């Protein structure tokens, strides 16, 4: 998969929220095969122990900063610039949340922030809802990918509106990364089968009983879905189709 000219072998991006501790995260990161892991920007905590950057890089992943927790374009833009300064990357997973109950994106603020950050030289990967029109507008203002949700962050409800996701995939000229809602491996496989280029998972892995096991499960689900999408599935048929020849049946 190629995003903004960079090639990735893995089609799974790891969200680091929700892990019990850095050790569990590191193990899951390795099992996931992911090449990118999100981080959020927060105030320095003198009491904090262990550096998430070292753990992520130690596991062979690169850091992808996000703007989690921002409710306005202005805050998101400032946060992205701080992340660039702190982490030396101009890639940002852009989040501008509309309310803290659903954590759904605010369409207008998101579009506004995306436009500003693109103009400022960022490689912008926006977390968006499943509206095909908004996805198109985000692409139009220069986003390097679009990251529609399957269902709300952490809900694990899977892909609520596969019709909209199909439309987004059908008309996108940038990679489509399903973000939020994946609860288990079959959700991830389905996303790839619909034509999504990749999946981002946080809670599905970090909050599973066995995060490393689920990381591996979702990694395989992503590979399975991608292979299936390329292998050309059979059409759905209303009636059965015998898989055994009628001809040559015995008569006893």
């Amino acid at each position, binding site marked *: 998969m190629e995003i903004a000219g960079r090639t990735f072998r893995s089609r799974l991006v790891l969200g680091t929220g929700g892990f019990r501790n850095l050790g569990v995260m590191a193990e899951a990161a390795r099992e996931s095969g992911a090449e990118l892991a999100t981080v959020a920007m927060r105030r*320095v905590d003198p009491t904090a122990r262990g550096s998430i950057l070292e753990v992520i890089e130690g596991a062979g992943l690169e850091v992808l900063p996000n703007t989690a927790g921002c409710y306005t374009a202005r805050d998101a833009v400032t946060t992205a610039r701080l*992340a660039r300064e702190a982490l030396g990357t101009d890639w940002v997973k852009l989040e501008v949340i509309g309310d803290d109950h659903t954590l759904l994106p605010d369409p207008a603020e998101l579009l506004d922030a995306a436009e500003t950050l693109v103009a400022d030289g960022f490689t912008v990967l926006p977390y968006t809802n499943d509206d095909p029109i908004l996805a198109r507008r985000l692409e139009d203002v220069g986003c390097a990918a679009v990251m529609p949700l399957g269902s709300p962050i952490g809900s694990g409800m899977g892909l609520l509106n596969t019709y909209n996701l199909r439309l987004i995939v059908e008309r996108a000229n940038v990679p489509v990364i399903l973000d939020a809602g994946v609860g288990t491996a079959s959700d991830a496989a389905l996303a790839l089968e619909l034509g999504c280029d990749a999946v981002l998972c946080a809670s599905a892995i970090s909050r599973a009983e066995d995060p490393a096991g689920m990381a591996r499960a979702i990694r395989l689900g992503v590979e399975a879905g991608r292979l299936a999408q390329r292998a050309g599935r059979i059409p759905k048929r209303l009636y059965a189709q015998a898989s055994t020849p009628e001809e040559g049946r015995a008569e006893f």
Partner: protein
Amino acid sequence: MTVVTLNGAEKELPEGATVEAAVRAAGAPEHGRGVAVAVDGEVLPRGEWATTEIQEGQKVEVLHAVQGGQ
């Protein structure tokens, strides 16, 4: 003394303290890798920390990367 709002809390710093001092006061790791600073909402490049004096009443945010996201 200069009184500023450092990561949301009132903080007294010595007259003429620089942003670098504020960063240390915020408890950022020495080498300070992965840390960034905004003064009154504007990002201040690391290169200018040592040479920028903090003014009375400024709002200083010292951030670093944490687990998070999505």
